[in-house]
């Protein structure tokens, strides 16, 4: 009896049995991939370097003061390190989950294997959860192996277990939610990049724009709830607000203030369950449709395409069909730009409409708000920056991997095009296709700084924004191209590009890195604005140069791993 109960109990909670053979297969495959072990090693190494650099800058040989003073600074350093790492994990884990799940079902639909899976006794639930859990398992493992490091930092003092536990739980549930949303979108949209961008946009609207609007209305007394209730509700329903609430007080006083995090996590799990249920319901419908249907084009996308063709290419007289666009300039750029700024699928068109709408609302809100509304301006600027860079990563990394996936890569490489022309063409196209987004970001950034500092903000805009942006663009495009040549799938290449960019910017260029600490100390002691400019220039040049080096490496590797 006891044995039977134990057996039933173990069967019930056996993940392989629960999530089915897809999960089992992924476990076996991932254990054979050397790349996964390398990734874990690199991640721990990166975190260790970061922690050591903070340690050195806080208690290093150049630090002044007595031993007692230095030890008293340990708790402050511990808080800074842990907040930076957990923020990094919180953002990176969600973004990478979105990228990893972005082609999970769409690839199966496109290759027709989903229909085959549906003819087996595997249930829709097992397909969906098998995909979700197997992909997220790698991510959870990455988070898990960082736990010992976080525990070590506790030795510094000033970091209670409550904060570590709440941060990890909030990150895990937010990652699950992001993955489930991306998986649901991958049932609807064919291309991974559409899935990624639509999911990020949904996040921006539901976890950024709408909460921001509700909060603003509540502050002005125009919402159904008062300010306090609104903010509490937002903290319960929005992982970003929850994490911000958990961190804010902790950084100031060392005491975690958000005590409702278990409830928040439960709510996130409930929303994830709803998304999984929707995915389970939709996946069975998607399988037979996929076998017969071609990609539908949104009516507006078709009209836009025809109009743009008429405006930019007066081709009717020369070419047999006015919809045929003649090849002009370097062929690689022409081919990539053929898709236009918007793209041609219904998902891309919908996303473009969403972006334009979000930009107009953001511009109006920023113009109407007081110059000191940092949350609102910070949110909009960060959101557009993030979308622009994610899109850039997709186009630069995907520019090569999509050709590999479609098997057009060998055909292209069999032409006499120079390797540098191919890499340059892909890079220019990735940049050009994102120009509208970068312009939107530039306008929002400029509005914010003009409202804050008037005409005096021009040097800041020119220096801080343009220089940082240019270096980031170079870095993302360069690393995207490099990972495009290294990986076979778009999802892997984009995940690596985004992961590396976030790691570099968060851990080594963020507010807590040693270079910035040095700069802040110098500025506060000597008031050296020029030093600030100097440090920013050095940092931007370093990031930009790294991007260029990676692009060169991509050129050298272009003809490796073609098949």
């Amino acid at each position: 009896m006891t044995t039977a109960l134990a057996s039933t109990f173990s069967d019930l909670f056996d993940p392989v049995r629960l999530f089915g053979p897809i999960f089992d297969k992924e476990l076996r495959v991932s254990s054979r991939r050397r790349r996964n072990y390398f990734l874990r090693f690199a991640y721990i190494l990166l975190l260790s370097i970061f922690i050591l650099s903070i340690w050195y800058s806080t208690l290093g040989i150049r630090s002044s003061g007595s031993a007692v003073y230095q030890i008293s600074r340990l708790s402050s350093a511990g808080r800074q390190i842990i907040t930076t790492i957990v923020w990094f994990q919180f953002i990176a884990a969600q973004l990478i989950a979105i990228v990893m799940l972005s082609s999970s079902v769409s690839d199966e639909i496109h290759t027709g294997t989903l229909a085959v899976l549906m003819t087996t006794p595997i249930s829709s639930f097992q397909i969906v959860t098998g995909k979700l859990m197997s992909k997220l398992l790698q991510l959870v493992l990455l988070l898990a192996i960082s736990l010992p490091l976080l525990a070590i930092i506790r030795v510094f003092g000033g970091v209670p277990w409550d904060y570590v536990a709440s941060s990890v739980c909030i990150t895990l549930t937010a990652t699950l939610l992001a993955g489930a949303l991306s998986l649901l979108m991958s049932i609807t949209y064919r291309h991974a990049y559409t899935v990624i961008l639509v999911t990020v946009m949904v996040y921006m609207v539901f976890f950024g724009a709408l909460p921001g609007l509700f909060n603003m209305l509540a502050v002005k007394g125009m919402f159904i709830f008062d300010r306090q209730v609104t903010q509490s509700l937002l903290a319960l329903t929005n992982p970003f607000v929850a994490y911000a609430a958990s961190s804010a007080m902790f950084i100031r006083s060392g005491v975690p203030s958000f005590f409702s995090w278990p409830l928040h996590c439960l709510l996130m799990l409930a929303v994830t369950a709803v998304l999984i249920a929707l995915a389970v319901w939709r996946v069975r419908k998607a399988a037979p449709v996929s076998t017969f249907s071609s990609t539908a084009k949104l009516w507006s996308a078709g009209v836009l395409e025809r109009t743009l063709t008429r405006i930019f290419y007066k081709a009717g007289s020369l070419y047999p069909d006015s919809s045929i666009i003649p090849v002009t300039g370097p062929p690689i750029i022409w081919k990539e730009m053929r898709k236009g700024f918007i793209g041609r699928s219904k998902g891309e068109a919908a996303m473009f409409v969403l972006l334009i709408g979000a930009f107009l609302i953001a511009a109006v809100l920023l113009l109407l708000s007081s110059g000191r509304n940092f949350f609102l301006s910070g949110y909009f600027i960060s959101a557009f920056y993030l979308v622009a860079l994610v899109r850039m990563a997709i186009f630069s990394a995907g520019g090569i991997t999509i050709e590999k996936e479609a098997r057009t890569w060998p055909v292209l490489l069999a032409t006499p095009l120079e390797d540098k022309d191919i890499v340059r063409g892909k890079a220019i196209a990735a940049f050009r296709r994102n120009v509208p987004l970068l312009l939107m970001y530039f306008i929002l950034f400029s509005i914010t700084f003009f409202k804050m500092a008037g005409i005096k903000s021009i040097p800041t805009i020119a220096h801080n924004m343009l220089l940082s942006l240019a270096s980031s663009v170079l870095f993302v495009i360069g690393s995207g191209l490099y990972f495009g040549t290294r990986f076979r799938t778009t999802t892997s290449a984009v995940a690596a590009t985004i992961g590396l960019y976030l790691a570099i910017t968060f851990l080594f260029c963020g507010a807590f890195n040693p270079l910035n600490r040095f700069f802040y100390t110098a500025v506060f002691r000597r008031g050296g604005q020029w030093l600030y400019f100097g440090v920013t220039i050095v940092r931007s040049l370093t990031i930009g140069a790294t991007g260029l080096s990676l692009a060169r490496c991509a050129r050298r590797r272009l003809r490796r791993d073609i098949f």
Partner: protein
Amino acid sequence: MIETKNLTKNYGNLTAVDDLNLTIKDGDIFGFIGPNGAGKTTTMRILVTLLEPTGGSAFINGLNVTKDGKKVRRLVGYMPDFMGVYDDLKVFEYLEFFAAAFGIERKKRKSIVEGVLELTDLESKKSATVDSLSRGMQQRLGLARVLIHDPKVLILDEPASGLDPRARIEIRELLRELKRMGKTIMISSHILSELEEICDHVGIIEHGRLVFSGTMEEIRPRLGIESKVRVSVADHQDKAIELLSALPQVRQVQALGDEIAVTFHEGKDANGIVARTLVNAGLDIISIQPERLKLDDAFLQLTKGMVH
């Protein structure tokens, strides 16, 4: 001319191409045959500069494929075994893109694209998106792309795979047309009987080694196979057997029901000898048919380790 000298390609411990020596003359259609994993595709990929050989060398029109990669790519049209297409381009745009990639001047592109569309009978599809084409149409588009820069050498890796009989016949006719245009064509296929009809030469490869290279006629003595003729007469079958057995060129005569199987020591003019002998003796011939050695048979024998 295509030439390989001791060409070798290793993937770790696996030798995909092993000391391969091959010569294909200008204007020939060369059939490259072998079982899966024999090294056909690897050899072709080396020839089109997509892979670097581990050892040996390969030349196309005297150019070393490793050292003169760009020049070789201008000379060669390559169609891979699985041809991907850019799904968001139209047929005309697709071909014009490759015309631009091959450095063809903008003014000339339109007429060239229209020319290859006409040659491959795809004119009616020029405004269709590439991904909306059927498999056969896509294969034809692949051939059109290969021809866009008027290459002297065509390397086609299983161009007829997955096609229906009509599409296969169309591809075969197209290849004949290309041969008439003076192109040197290297073609691999598993549809062996089709290669038999269009190829001047064949090469059979197994485990990365070339086990046979030559014309169809050269395969027979290589395999030690004699020519056979099957003949059927209206009456007097016994007399026919007697007459044929007396011929010095004939090794064996055998009655097989209504037919007589005649085995010759060598295959030269076997049909004519049989026909003349029987007609001169006043016998009425109902049918006379040479028993040809099929490429499939040769392939099976050669790749079973019977000949080394």
